[in-house]
């Protein structure tokens, strides 16, 4: 792949999208925002699957894998948000820092 081809730039963009999400996972403290960051990470993974399909000429294989990932990702978002809402109701906070009861 040459560096100037659109697919190469798309691959680089996919890595950058994943990088933004990696940084977010390490820096974000709000639980709901953490689920948003996970969504961004999964978008990068989806983009990777479809790009791999497009690069290797097997778009439909990439599509079928991406469809599975979309379903799993939606279930993760639903459960994550429900957990965040419950945590907010019971503990009164969404801050990840305040959730840890372990001291030592």
């Amino acid at each position, binding site marked *: 792949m040459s560096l100037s081809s*659109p697919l190469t*730039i*798309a*691959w*680089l*963009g996919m*890595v950058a*999208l*994943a*990088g*933004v999400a*990696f*940084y*977010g996972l*390490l*820096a974000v*403290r*709000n639980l*709901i925002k953490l689920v*948003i*960051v996970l*969504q*961004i990470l999964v*978008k990068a993974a*989806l*983009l*990777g699957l*479809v790009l791999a*399909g*497009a690069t*290797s*000429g*097997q*778009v*439909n294989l*990439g*599509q*079928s894998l*991406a*469809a*599975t990932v*979309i*379903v*799993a990702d*939606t*279930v993760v*978002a*639903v*459960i994550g*948000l*429900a*957990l*965040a*809402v*419950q945590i*907010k109701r019971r503990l009164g*906070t*969404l*801050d*990840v820092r305040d959730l840890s009861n372990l001291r030592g």
Partner: protein
Amino acid sequence: MLIALLILTAVAFAALALRARRLLTSTLWLAGVSAVVSVVFYLLGARQVAVIELSIGAGLVTVLFVFAISVAGEEAMGARPLLPGVLAWALSILAIGLLGWFVRSLAMPAPPSAEPAFSAMLWGQRGLDVLVQVILIFAGVLGLLGLLAEAKAPLEKSVAEAIMAERDRDLAAMQQRAHDIHREKEIV
């Protein structure tokens, strides 16, 4: 070139979603990322997944986020991040480097002469994936029902607390009465 431009837009939207102070703004930027990524899918030839991504990623998930934010509410967080800034940057640059190296050394197989259609691929060759999807959706719905059923607990807790408070009041009144009787006996 359009694809590259769109992906760079998606990266910019993702960074804005990360930096947004309000959760609702962050959610809207995420919907933007989803919409742009679905256009990229369409341009790459993945038309079915583009439609699914647009309807689920930009539609359903955004509605879910707005619902969760309206229930849980916005919360102002302190400026201090979870990890020290330098460490977070170093770790994410390391992750980006590893991912870039992996992508660079990815050996793409030679394109097959004729690829089966999406439906044949999904239902025929990836039938197990479809089964897993059904199980996942079922587990997700069950999990959600379980979590939302627990939402009644605070109400029950408040009722229990009211009953306990009433019992405490009754107990205090009985103790007071017993104390008064004891005092009267002493006086007599």
